[in-house]
């Protein structure tokens, strides 16, 4: 499964490099890149498609891993960074920074991280406080998510100039991508991805329930917070350059759990690959389907991901009904 997803990702990345609005030959372009020739195809590949492909891969991987962590920490398959307000929190602080200090591009990931962390800790606090049945936590998350989303909307309504280039941000997509944003986010996201993998086994222990986890000698609360910090860096980092890409963080962990089971040491890398492949493919479609016009990838992800997710749920329903 791992190898298959890796191949799929590789294929998606290659297609993403060679297809686009302008019909250039990949091989000619790549050859020029490798030779160091400064041709038009080389420039398109190097400066437009490569960053974009990398961005799609990074955002997909980060959001999927964040989803795995959040679902694991809250032991709740309905949770996801976009459902419980983690993305919305990151979005709000990003917009706020962009509106107040437009020049502070390098700080965008940090602002997004702060927003994501704030939202996830708030959820954790509420979950603790309410003794939290799974449904309550999700409902609280939905409430927080829509509050933070309303904050973002208010900001764009009151201050349309400062947030003008942010309209695609709210839907999520890579059209406004700049190399600076991608690079500054990568500094946060890549180490967080590594940390997510190293800490994946602990999610299995948390999955045994608080009492069992504590009786095995785990610092349950500390582990939860640490995991959520990593998830917040991942989601915040992704949001800072890809906008509010919903859904990836919810559906990819689900789909992968179907394929490889619930053990996080396996689920984490598989979700990372799956999320990267899915986002890359969606971005490819988003910019080629109606070329030279392009639809924000966030729209496409929801359009395609929604039915796929429903199909998954129905398939599970049937399987469980059969016993």
């Amino acid at each position: 499964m791992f190898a298959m997803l890796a191949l799929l990702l590789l294929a998606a990345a290659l297609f993403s490099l060679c297809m686009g609005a302008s019909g250039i030959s990949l091989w000619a372009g790549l050859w020029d890149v490798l030779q160091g020739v400064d041709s038009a195809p080389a420039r398109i590949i190097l400066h437009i498609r490569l960053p974009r492909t990398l961005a799609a891969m990074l955002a997909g991987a980060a959001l999927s891993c964040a989803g795995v962590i959040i679902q694991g920490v809250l032991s709740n398959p309905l949770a996801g960074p976009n459902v419980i307000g983690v993305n919305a929190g990151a979005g709000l602080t990003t917009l706020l920074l962009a509106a107040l200090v437009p020049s502070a591009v390098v700080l965008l990931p940090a602002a997004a991280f702060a927003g994501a962390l704030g939202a996830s800790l708030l959820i954790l606090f509420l979950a603790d406080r309410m003794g939290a049945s799974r449904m309550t936590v999700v409902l609280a998350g939905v409430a927080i998510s829509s509050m933070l989303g309303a904050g973002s909307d208010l900001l764009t309504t009151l201050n349309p100039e400062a947030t003008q280039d942010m309209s695609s941000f709210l839907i999520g997509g890579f059209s406004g991508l700049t190399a600076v944003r991608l690079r500054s986010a990568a500094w946060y996201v890549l180490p967080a991805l590594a940390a997510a993998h190293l800490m994946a086994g602990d999610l299995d222990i948390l999955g045994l329930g608080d009492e069992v986890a504590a009786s095995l000698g785990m610092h349950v609360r500390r582990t939860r917070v640490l995991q959520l910090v990593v998830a917040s860096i991942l989601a915040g980092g992704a949001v800072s350059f890809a906008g509010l890409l919903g859904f990836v963080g919810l559906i990819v962990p689900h789909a992968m759990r179907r394929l490889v089971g619930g053990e996080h040491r396996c689920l984490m890398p598989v979700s990372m690959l799956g999320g990267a492949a899915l986002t890359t493919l969606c971005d490819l479609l988003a910019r080629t389907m109606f070329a030279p016009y392009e639809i924000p990838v966030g729209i496409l992800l929801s359009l395609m991901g929604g039915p796929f997710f429903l199909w998954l749920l129905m398939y599970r329903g049937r399987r469980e009904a059969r016993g």
Partner: protein
Amino acid sequence: MIRLEDVTFAYQDEPVLRGVSCTLEDGCLTAVIGANGSGKSTMLRLCAGQLRPGSGRVLAEGREAAAYAPKAFARAVAYLPQNRPMPMISVRSLVSHGRFPYLGMTRRMHPEDEAAVDRAMEVCGVSALASRELRTLSGGQRQRAYLAMLMAQGSQNLLLDEPTTYLDVRHQLELMTLLRQLRDEGRCVLTVLHDLRQAAACDRVLVLEQGNIIFDGPGSGLYGSGALELAFGIRAVPGAEAGFVPVKMAPDGI
């Protein structure tokens, strides 16, 4: 060995344990029985270090839980709560989690950890189920898998909260046999039970009533002690050790 010294505990203002003292020896299978709300599970959680006593002391191997690092405590005391979520993992993974208190930062299992897991699965009869998903097992198989996890933990003291609930009679008996095996290995086993016959077959029985121990003695002495009347409002029918009749009705008729 676990020792409770005049332990009290209250949830908010509601006292649950009112001065409980006892010493649970190694190589002894002890059952705790009592009506709902009598403090059985609370007593177990206190022994497991999950709750801190309001007053008095709980000592595991002679030291208070707070004096241990969490993993060191887990190596001394293993605890199986009654209610647990059902993770999507295989039996082998579950049993492997029992080794968590022995793993370092990398969480890498060493050969001796694998050996402990293999042995625990064998003793509990779940080796053949190793690769099966937990949720595809029957209740009895699942309970044995959890017991294997507890065994893999290798702790001297084992605490189980109603491990036989939801099991049919045969699986209940199998589980009790397993607990006796663990006792024979010299461990200190403490289990909350609902079934009086199984409790009476244990080495030692504690009967809790409103947070007090009202009977502490060998299982064979349970029926004649009068403790069942106090704790449950029932008494054993003379000559028919396995049968019970109600002697008084609770006000709500149950």
